[in-house]
């Protein structure tokens, strides 16, 4: 992929937080490039994967600070962009969906009204046009009986449907990049697959770039094109999903090996032995 | 062995911050210390704490800080303005107001203490039992709570006074009886949230009796809200006692209760303002102190904040 194909280019991104106990470096000097592909970021808790996603949209919480040599989206410098530029980009050109739709959806508005509202944020349209668009989106995410679902409240819809609604909302403005932070972790496994199929479709149809952040190595390697493995705020390895079995880094190895496999027998699982050397600041990573 | 080493090595601070407490006492001391560190960062709360600490010190040192007990009358020197000899002036019976304020601190603390030890256990017990057991127990207890909530404080105080005679203790009982209801409701609300927690289920599975679960598991989770609410209510309680004193239903002369002092001073408000105003200030400052302290405690004790 040449530079021109990349939607997002990040060089030496670091995110740190000021806490009463000192400075916590959540993300340390990572590089990544995203083209029109599905990029997965995998890591355990505390690896910095969620913070990376948020940093791209400058959504890091108050006491955190972002620094990078380069953080570009389509020629725009995300690091130095004004608040107004970021507001224009967020939700419009780079969208984000998160884990639990119950926490991301407004509990006192019907889901249809929320989708319509999302539309009217980025486009000046009348109420009826917004409503029509909301219906259209509900159909696009394969919700049966969209008129009925339009009038439901978030607590009345199942997890899978809630996530589809989130996707509908996020896709209205036709963004170029979608960042999904553990979008399927709270869902049943069959529903997970259906939601991912939906994302797959959207990405293919619209030529979007997708960043999928997850702790589920299996899921990411079967769904994404490229995989970044994170640990301790750094990227341990970047490889093509299909090459996962040929992983080089001991952390990736360890992670793969300690997963129980279906039909894999009952032997003791190999424990991941953490090498403190992995936390040392690496030189420029691939 | 290990913790003695800790104490001599880094001193108390190391002992209080060590990762692995060696016994239950150290664990709880650590928890209190960490709470204190959080509390310290809030300057407003520290002001509240200082005020209340001063109240306690003043009350404790009353004999040292004053010449008399504030009840000696000196009619020749009545209604004197604040001066070098009488820092806060004298009242209509020639009693030194400064002395009365200082000794009145003891009365204020007495009120605060008695009301707390009556209201807290009753409110906690009724609320937690009602919330945990549910069903008809809940209904009965909550209706009793509602009944007590409906009593107007002053009318009840009048009733007590006519039945038992006027006096500070009776006023305090009247206040306590009309104050515990909201605490029961608060405890019940907390209990309802806590009741379905997995640690409660685990205790049930282990065969813990209802009593044990309520006392050892549920009550500790309600304590924070109750304490915070009580501290914030303190101001109101002091004012109510003062109000009752004002009406002559509470503290009886010559007890230097601040509310009673305001009451007797009201006839002289225009010319000898200090007789009513200075006790009024004292009530204001102490109420403020309790309010600020309560606010600060909320930051420290809130279980949601503490569940890191």
């Amino acid at each position, binding site marked *: 992929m040449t530079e021109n194909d990349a939607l997002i280019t990040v060089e030496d991104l670091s995110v740190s937080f000021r806490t009463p106990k000192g400075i916590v470096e959540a993300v340390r000097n990572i590089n990544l490039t995203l083209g029109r592909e599905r990029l997965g970021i995998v890591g355990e*808790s505390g690896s910095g994967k969620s913070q990376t996603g948020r940093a791209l949209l400058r959504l890091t919480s108050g006491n955190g600070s972002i620094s990078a040599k380069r953080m570009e989206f389509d020629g725009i410098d995300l690091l130095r962009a004004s608040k107004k530029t970021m507001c224009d980009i967020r939700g419009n050109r780079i969208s984000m969906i998160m884990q639990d739709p119950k926490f991301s959806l407004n509990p006192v508005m019907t889901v249809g009204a929320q989708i319509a509202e999302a539309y009217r944020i980025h486009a000046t349209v009348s109420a009826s046009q917004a409503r029509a668009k909301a219906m259209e989106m509900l159909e696009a995410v394969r919700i049966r009986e969209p008129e009925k679902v339009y009038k439901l409240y978030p607590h009345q819809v199942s997890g899978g449907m809630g996530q589809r609604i989130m996707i509908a909302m996020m896709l209205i403005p036709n963004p170029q990049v979608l960042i999904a932070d553990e979008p399927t972790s709270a869902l*049943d496994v069959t529903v997970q697959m259906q939601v991912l199929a939906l994302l797959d479709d959207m990405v293919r149809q619209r030529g979007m770039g997708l960043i999928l952040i997850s702790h589920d190595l299996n899921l990411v390697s079967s769904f994404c094109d490229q995989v970044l493995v994170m640990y301790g705020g750094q990227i341990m390895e970047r490889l093509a999903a299909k090459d996962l079995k040929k992983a080089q880094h001991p952390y990736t190895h360890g992670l793969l090996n300690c997963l129980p496999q279906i039909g894999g027998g009952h032997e003791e699982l190999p424990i991941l032995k953490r090498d403190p050397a992995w936390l040392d600041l690496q030189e420029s990573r691939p | 062995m290990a913790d003695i080493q800790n104490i001599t090595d880094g001193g108390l601070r190391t002992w209080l911050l060590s990762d692995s407490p060696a016994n239950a006492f150290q664990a709880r001391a650590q928890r209190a210390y960490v709470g204190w560190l959080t509390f310290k960062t809030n300057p407003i709360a520290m002001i509240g704490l200082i005020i209340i600490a001063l109240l306690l010190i003043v009350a404790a040192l009353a004999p040292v800080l004053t010449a008399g007990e504030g009840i000696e009358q000196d009619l020749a020197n009545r209604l004197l303005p604040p001066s070098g000899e009488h820092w806060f002036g004298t009242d209509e019976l020639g009693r030194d107001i400064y002395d009365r304020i200082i000794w009145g601190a003891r009365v204020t603390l007495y009120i605060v203490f008695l009301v707390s030890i009556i209201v807290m256990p009753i409110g906690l017990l009724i609320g937690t039992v009602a919330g945990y057991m549910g069903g008809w127990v809940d209904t009965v207890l909550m209706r009793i709570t509602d009944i007590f909530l409906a009593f107007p404080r002053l009318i009840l105080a009048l009733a007590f006074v006519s039945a038992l005679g006027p006096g500070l203790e009776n006023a305090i009982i009247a206040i306590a009886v009309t104050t515990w209801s909201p605490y029961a409701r608060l405890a019940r609300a907390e209990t309802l949230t806590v009741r379905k927690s997995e640690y409660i289920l685990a205790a049930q*599975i282990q065969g813990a009796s209802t009593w044990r679960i309520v006392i050892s598991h549920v009550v500790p989770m309600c304590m924070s809200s109750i304490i915070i609410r009580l501290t914030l209510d303190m101001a109101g309680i002091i004012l109510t006692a003062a109000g009752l004193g004002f009406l002559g239903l509470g503290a009886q002369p010559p007890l230097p209760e601040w509310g009673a002092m305001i009451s007797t001073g009201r006839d002289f408000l225009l010319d000898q303002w200090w007789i009513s105003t200075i006790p009024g200030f004292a009530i204001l400052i102490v109420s403020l102190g309790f309010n600020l302290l309560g606010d600060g405690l909320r930051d420290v004790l809130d279980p949601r904040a503490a569940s890191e």
Partner: protein
Amino acid sequence: MIEVRDLNIRFGQGATAIHAVRDATFSVAQGESYGIVGESGSGKSTILRGLAGLVDDWTGEMSVDGRSLSNRPSKADRKQLQMVFQDPYGSLHPRRTVNDTLSEPLVIHGFDNIEERVINALGEVGLGREFRFRFPHQLSGGQRQRIAIARALILEPQVVLLDEPTSALDVSVQAEILNLLVRLRAAHGLTYLMVSHDLAVVGHLCKLIAVMNRGAIIEEMTDEQMRTGDMEHAYTRQLWVASKGYDLDALGKFIDFE
């Protein structure tokens, strides 16, 4: 060791009543590990709670070690059956130290040598004495779950119910806890009943697995079936396929089992 026959559990009354478990029947031999998988709302956790005596309204028969379970388990009944919960952050009382949590069951049942037993229990789950007086917020997720396991074992039960014990843990920690559970099962001759939505985890620990959908057990799978995918019911097969990872072609054939 565990016999369940025609278990029915209902919640609520009238129009909003939920029939959470329908005619569940299964048995678990002594020393075995039995798994129950299902998606959310399938009723799997409810069965566990029913066995643990946490459900008031149930019909059918449940017995452990030949003794029938009653609606109100006695204190003695409690000693034979204990449970490990899913959320390590919720299953320990936030205001009590590890020592409090572990010694309480011993005090309730009048055991002696409490201090010694607590220290032994910690050792068995791989934690040293230095953990004894910590509060839950001073422990990591894996450590909390170990304490929860120690708590479950401290009364020396015969049966341990496991409600998604590793779902909330990181992958590397999950492996350690699963290994620990296997080791403890061998060391104490325990019988496990494990519930999970994760087929791989259940398959690793258990040789016989029941599949639930909407309150009913629709199939019982063996090891061999897990390996080959040769299942009777289409729902089970679908679950198996979905658990293996994202496969666009397979997804096309998915049916809705609403």
